[in-house]
């Protein structure tokens, strides 16, 4: 890969491998922290202003008008993680054992190494808890931004394939 040496802030995911690879490694790290319930480390991947949104009924649901499965700003996500961290979040006692595959990662055409942009991927989470195995599949969009040289996520939106179906508990980080 000789493209490595040509990387600039204007580089995008199509023109060079390093820009793509940085995003891929970010998503893998995020997946690992979520799988292992490292709530605060996962939380620190977000910017101060954030949206963590998992719609239900349909992918085009309007935030704040249609009820979602998860619709968290910073304060609400902080509370979600605080609660999961207590000893009394019964639906996570014992915790779900998780293993997720992140794939089909595509950077938007206007993604730039220097400023970030939108990234689309697919996820398949296997959840094992109390003798039951659930599979949670969906499309994910991340809005990544570079702040002080560090790549962070401003938005994470998860469009579950089953979001119009009857669902069991979804109490881990999806």
């Amino acid at each position, binding site marked *: 890969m000789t493209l490595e040496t040509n990387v600039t802030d204007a580089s995008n995911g199509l023109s060079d491998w390093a820009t793509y690879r940085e995003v891929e490694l970010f998503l893998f790290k995020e997946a690992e922290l979520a799988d292992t319930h490292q709530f605060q480390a996962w939380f620190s991947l977000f910017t101060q202003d954030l949206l963590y949104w*998992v719609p*239900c009924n349909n992918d085009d649901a309007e935030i704040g008008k249609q009820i979602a499965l998860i619709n968290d700003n910073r304060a609400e996500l902080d509370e979600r993680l605080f609660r999961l961290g207590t000893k009394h*979040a019964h639906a996570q006692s014992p915790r779900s054992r998780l293993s997720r595959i992140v794939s089909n990662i595509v950077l938007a055409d206007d993604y730039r190494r220097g400023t970030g942009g939108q990234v689309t991927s697919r996820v398949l989470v296997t959840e094992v808890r109390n003798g039951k195995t659930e599979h949670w599949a969906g499309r994910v969009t991340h809005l990544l931004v570079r702040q002080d040289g560090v790549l962070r996520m401003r938005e994470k939106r998860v469009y579950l394939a089953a979001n119009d179906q009857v*669902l069991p508990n979804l109490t881990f980080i999806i």
Partner: protein
Amino acid sequence: MSQCQNEPCATESPVVWHRPTPSNEAIASLVQDGRVHSRIYTDQSIFDLEMERIFHRSWIYIGHESEVPRAGDFQARRMGRTPVLMVRGRDAQVRVLINRCRHRGATVVETESGNTKMLRCWYHGWVYDLTGALREVTEPGGYGPDFKPEEMGLTQVPRVASHRGFLFASLQPEGESLAEFLGGAASQFDMLVDASPTGEIFLDAGFNKTEYLGNWKLVGMDGYHPNFVHASVVAGWARNSESGIGSMHREDPFSDAALTLTRDYGHGHAMLDFRAQRLKSYSKHAAFLAKVPGGEKYVEDMHKAYGKDRAEMLISLSGDPHLGLFPNLQLIGNQVRIIVPIAPGVTQVLMSMVRFGGVSDEINTMRVRQHESFYGPAGSGSPDDAEIFERVQRGMQAEFNPWIEISRGMHREYIDTDGSVVGRITDEVPQRGQMKYWLQLMTNSAA
């Protein structure tokens, strides 16, 4: 020769013909003073009988009229095992039709909701209109003069009635009226609908659809559990008392010292009565609303519409009568909830958010976010409830000493002036009320 000679002839329902129907004496032995046998939650023959004697007879909540605002709008629902459609016709009337083609039995609608000009079965192409009338039979020459199309429409559920926009139906052609069935609980619908200054509510914000591996009767009105099942949420309120649904629950309403009550209206209808407790914090709640754009105007409009006393009560209660309407409707928090029994150990709970008419968009968005914070598969509350119901269902498999204790507060409950039975918030008044009516329906002693 009759097939009934060698075994009891099951005349009541083909659903249970292959199983011996438990006798009334056997059923009655499961419900005792202050305790019930866990088999009422785990047994398949009891469940089958519940479908027949409760869900295929009683008034069942179908949906709210605002869910089908235009001609041709439909929602697919269930009455026990019976798939039904709530459809608005071109005459603006809302009907409840059995979602089953009169020809060979296929469901005619497969989506949960939508808008259609007609109802077509795609097995052989029969077409029904929005009233259920049969409009077209393909290749009609195949039927002789005895075939009467006018008698082959989609089956109408025999009785349909509504109360303040809430539509109920009963598969039993004769029986008590909806007003008689609702009894004293009818007035509690006002506490929800009149929380809108214009008296308008809309169920158009979608559903959280959840499922737990436990019996449908477990999801009832219980004022004893919140400080334990929802301990993690209560801990969150110590950090921010107004986060999520915290603004509704000030000053620990779930302690025996609170003004909160349990109330049984009969017919299995029971509520956690937060009225006096929340009214005490009216000024705090009004101050909370004032922080939301349109909140001060809402308070003002409520006073204009209902006068000071009633407005303060309605505002304090936040449209949350916390009423369980037996067997399948609950008005809780910002939601209308439908309980759908699937099997003895499988239950679906459908939770929709109530949008108020006559208020700012910001107030409704605040209500959406309150709902999302606590309810649904990923909320802070519903999953812990579901988890505990599943633990109960597992524990109840034990039939050595199988009794479920529901005696709490029997020594201190009393009958209020309106005839309802009242206890403290932690008392099991709702559980006893539910089981009393359940037994009545299951042993046919209501008829």
